[in-house]
């Protein structure tokens, strides 16, 4: 066990820091969920990252990445958060779509989709959930009917993050009409501006339009858009969910920066940050560090050829609960000002915490509700009966 950075690791971190200092926009970008303008500003940031070859640190070089391991990715994510870089509108592509394509795609599919994913030229949404298929994803009803050299897609998808402004969606369809549950499903891509696709924004809890419903009516796509074999959709989804719940969905640096800002907030409002609140601030600092240490430990294991299994579910529970606790502590310090929207004249830096608080409430729900994660831990880690 050696918890010091090698000279090469230190140099890499310094390189990230220097690049971020030179390239991070000086003013925060408008939200990518609230407007086309904000979305395109974030797409431009993806392009800038890609030009510096910082967009996809863990991807192979031929697809626009750096071909580096998880350790370097953690170093990159640290520099990114430290510099206050914009959030990644391409997050889905980096840690879910891309790795899934690399594992299950044909060479032609990889060549067609990955470079544009890396550059942000094409930004992807996910179209898995349906009104009747949430935690019970195997209840998917949307269909892909084979038709000549392609498929005809029909159905109703929902809760698709980024779908309002994204270019493509990564959909889960029932390709075998007589099939049930997790059999007979296929993963098929479609353009969100294709004829027959209607995207209906859903106002989120905070009033913004971060996710959408997608209605598909006789949408024709070529067979080229199917990932993996027909009927392999469920297996691919499970692999993707592993990437997601694993370490790349939420970098520890984000929480460490939130904890750092929370301590600064506590210091700036000492009168409002005593007793229970101060204890919550300290717990937030400790939890952010614990999460980081756990992720570094997992990364070391994975880089040495290990695998991540059900313990990825422990990560998801821990960070999502921590995120809420960090923001609750901040709102507690802000007291009666906590309810102010960022547009209120007296808001100051309040809005950022309020936005973050509402966003944090999604954490225990998306990417597999925490109750499902607890079932996974209980059954697959602890071996309890189903």
């Amino acid at each position, binding site marked *: 066990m050696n918890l010091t*950075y090698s000279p090469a690791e230190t140099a890499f971190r310094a390189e990230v820091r220097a690049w971020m200092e030179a390239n991070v926009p000086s003013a925060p970008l408008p939200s990518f969920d609230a407007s086309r303008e904000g979305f395109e500003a974030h797409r431009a940031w993806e392009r800038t990252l890609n030009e510096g070859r910082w967009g996809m640190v863990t991807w192979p070089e031929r697809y626009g990445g750096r071909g580096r391991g998880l350790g370097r990715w953690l170093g990159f994510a640290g520099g990114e958060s430290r510099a206050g870089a914009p959030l990644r509108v391409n997050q889905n592509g980096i840690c879910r779509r891309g790795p899934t394509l690399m594992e299950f795609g044909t060479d032609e599919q990889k060549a067609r989709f990955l470079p544009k994913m890396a550059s942000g030229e094409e930004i992807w949404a996910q179209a898995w959930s349906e009104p009747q298929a949430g935690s019970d994803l195997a209840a998917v009803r949307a269909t892909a009917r084979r038709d000549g050299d392609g498929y005809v897609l029909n159905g109703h998808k929902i809760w698709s993050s980024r779908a309002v402004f994204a270019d493509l969606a990564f959909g889960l369809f029932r390709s075998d009409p007589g099939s049930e549950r997790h059999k007979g499903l296929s993963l098929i891509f479609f353009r969100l501006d294709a004829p027959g696709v209607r995207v209906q924004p859903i106002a989120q809890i905070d009033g913004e339009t971060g996710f959408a419903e997608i209605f598909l009516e006789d949408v024709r796509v070529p067979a080229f858009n199917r990932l993996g074999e027909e009927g392999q959709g469920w297996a691919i989804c499970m692999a993707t969910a592993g990437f997601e719940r694993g370490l790349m969905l939420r970098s520890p640096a984000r929480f460490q920066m939130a904890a750092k800002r929370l301590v600064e907030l506590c210091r700036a409002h000492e009168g409002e940050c005593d007793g229970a609140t101060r204890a919550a601030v*300290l717990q937030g600092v*400790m939890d952010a560090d614990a999460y980081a240490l*756990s992720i570094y430990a997992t990364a070391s294991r994975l880089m040495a050829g290990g695998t991540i299994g059900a313990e990825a579910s422990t990560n998801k529970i821990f960070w999502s609960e921590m995120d809420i606790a960090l923001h609750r502590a901040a709102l507690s310090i802000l007291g009666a000002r906590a309810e102010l929207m960022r547009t209120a004249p007296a808001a100051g830096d309040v809005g950022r915490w309020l936005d973050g608080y509402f966003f944090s409430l999604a954490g225990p729900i998306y990417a597999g509700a925490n109750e499902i994660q607890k079932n996974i831990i209980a059954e697959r880690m602890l071996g309890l*009966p189903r």
Partner: protein
Amino acid sequence: MDFRFTDEQQMMAESVRALLADLCRPEDLRRLAASDAARDAARWDAIVGLGLQGALVPEARGGLGLGAADFVLIAEACGYACLPEPLVENASVALPLLAALARDERASAILDRALAGEITVALAHPANPFAADADTAGALLAARGDDVFLCDAADLALERQESIDPFRRLFSIASRPCVSMAIADAAEARGALDAALDRGATFAAAQLVGIAQRAVDLAVAYAKERQQFGKPIGSYQAVKHLLATAQVRIEFARPVVYAAAAQLAQGDVFSRARVSHARLAAAEAADLACRTAVQVHGAMGYSWEVDVHFFLKRALALSSWWGDAVFHRRRVAERAFGRPLGPDTTFAAEARG
């Protein structure tokens, strides 16, 4: 950066786990609890046979010369087994402290006897209100005021303070008969005593993580067997979620404990805050896991018959041993509010700069 244990570290821990799985089973604990004996002599002999009591004493002084990262898995295994004998305290605190301070022949001779397994050494440290296992020790290291004394066991007037943990033997030192036996003065001893506290807290944390895992494992085993409404109770989500929640707490205490051990030697505000964080997180995990195990066992969990209470009691004891929660929170606060935070300070070495 490599957050993995070496094969050698894993193998050594595995051999201790195997030894304790043979010799420190719940029925062994019960047999000892029902007897008047302080220790299981055969088990202690087996432990001493591996030289573990000298694990953290430098090779030049006759120990194994291991580092804290080498010992942390062993301490965790001792927690997992609820080991009654004072291996962790001797190996990680008392004997390294004695080795650091022993300058004269008498002290060196006591150290040699302890390393040979002939005696144990108890410790009265200002961080703890009592001395553990003082009645069975051959010598007592006592920090009094600013000086450190090395007392012969025969000179001690001990007053037993019964612990809820049937295997903890706590004593007040009722008199100061060994005042002339000073082996170090304040200036010499300060650093060594501080380091002793950090080792004590780190390896208490490691034991607490082991205890927590054992509590979950006991409850999981019971939940698979125990049937209600025609099914194992472990098939119900209410029970699954209790256990999963406890396991999450363990998963995010364990790496903190390992990191604390790996950078223990740094001995500054950063490594000390990490030690304190480890102790707090491990105590929380053990508390939750043990209470969860009681709950999952239902009424059986409240009985003497089920083994959970041994672990619950050890967790309670170790959670305030080597500094209580107030002490450790204060050290974390000192670091969190007084030094830079953020992703560039994850590890104690990089935080120091």
